[in-house]
């Protein structure tokens, strides 16, 4: 987004203001606040204790915080710049850098003031969070007239990037269908569970392949399975996510009555009720005009019907 000329004029005007008026710390550098700080941070450095204590350098900003009911002064350049970017739709903020330099040790009783000036406003930048402007300010802490510490502070003022639309869940992962497996998927479409059979030696095999592993014959045919079997083994899949599935799901290795084994998902079951040896029946499920997938269900005790 390009900014109008007035925006850049405002930036230059705030920069030209230079340092804001000094804002005084509520309290002089004092031991109770240092003790609270070292207690919370867990810093046991002996320099920060006792009547000759010095202030932890990293506490510099603490002395001049605005406090529970405080607000920025009207001439605070960071506040002015935030308001300008808010008004132009860059309403979110995140701090990115904080660089502090300490010119000397601070002693108990020193009374500090702080000023702020606007250093740079750089943008628009495209970031992971959205389009935004980097605003850099410099604070200078004084003890009397003497600068004792400085901080360069950078924030990103940004418009949150619109969330990407949710990925449309797919119902199934479609199988890769090859010359060797075409008969199987044609079978499910036709309401049959087909098992490859070697016409030469009669061996049944699954998954399908181009050649009989027993005799080497290359022109397989198939038989139609009963659709009954039992669980040879199974896993309960909790993770990772599977497109279109509500986890956990049970994936069973089903041993068919005919003797071959076949992997498939067990539908509508409580994983706790599944066990090795449980009888199962085929549940062909039509996905669309081009695909019907074989699933399995735990067989009810009187489920003796043949398919289809």
């Amino acid at each position: 987004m390009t900014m109008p000329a007035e925006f850049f004029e405002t930036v230059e005007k705030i920069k030209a203001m230079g340092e804001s008026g000094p804002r005084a710390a509520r309290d002089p550098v004092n031991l109770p606040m240092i003790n609270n700080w070292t207690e919370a941070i867990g810093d046991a450095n002996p320099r920060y204790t006792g009547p000759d204590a010095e202030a932890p350098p990293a506490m510099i900003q603490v002395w001049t915080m605005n406090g529970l009911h405080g607000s920025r002064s009207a001439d605070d350049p960071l506040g002015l710049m935030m308001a300008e970017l808010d008004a132009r739709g860059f309403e979110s903020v995140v701090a990115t850098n904080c660089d502090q330099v300490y010119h000397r040790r601070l002693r108990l009783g020193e009374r500090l003031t702080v000023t702020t000036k606007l250093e740079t406003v750089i943008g628009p930048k495209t970031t992971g969070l959205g389009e935004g402007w980097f605003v850099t300010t410099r604070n200078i802490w004084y003890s009397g007239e003497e600068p004792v510490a400085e901080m360069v502070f950078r924030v990103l003022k940004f418009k949150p990037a619109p969330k990407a639309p949710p990925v449309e869940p797919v119902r199934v992962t479609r199988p890769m269908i090859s010359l060797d497996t075409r008969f199987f998927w044609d079978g499910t479409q036709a309401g049959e569970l087909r098992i490859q059979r070697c016409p030469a030696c009669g061996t049944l095999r699954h998954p399908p392949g181009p050649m009989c592993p027993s005799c080497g014959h290359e022109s397989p045919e198939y038989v139609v399975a009963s659709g009954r079997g039992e669980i040879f083994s199974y896993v309960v899949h909790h993770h990772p996510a599977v497109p279109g599935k509500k986890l956990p799901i049970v994936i069973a290795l089903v041993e068919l009555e005919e003797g071959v084994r076949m992997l498939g998902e067990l539908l509508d079951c409580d994983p706790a009720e599944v066990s090795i040896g449980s009888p199962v029946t085929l549940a062909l499920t039509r996905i669309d005009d081009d695909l019907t997938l074989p699933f399995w269900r735990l067989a009810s005790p009187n489920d003796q019907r043949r398919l289809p």
Partner: protein
Amino acid sequence: MTEVGDVLPELRIEATPTFVVSTALATRDFQDVHHDRDLAIAKGSKDIFVNILTDTGLVQRFVSDWAGPDALVKSISIRLGVPCYAYDTLVFSGSVLSVEGDDVTVSVIARGQLGDHVIGTVVISGVTA
């Protein structure tokens, strides 16, 4: 004698809710996202999170614990990464980047569950490590 490549002892900070709140208040940072979980969540955060003044304080502690009490911290520069929410654990690691006269520059990384929380450098003199 401090040399480039010297590795600092690791520092682990359990960022319990008590830690997040007590450090925020000890640094006089009363922004609600550092002590009020309901408001922090309403503003899109997962939980209350550690404030920046505490990060600077922890980086200083990590380096000065190693450098010894005679050391003088001259500067701390930090880049802020992913937030450190309550119940996270921050692990500080660091090593000596350069030694120029009495000034030692140390690089510091504080990692939490979400990744790098703070990446920074500290310049310190009077190191007795």
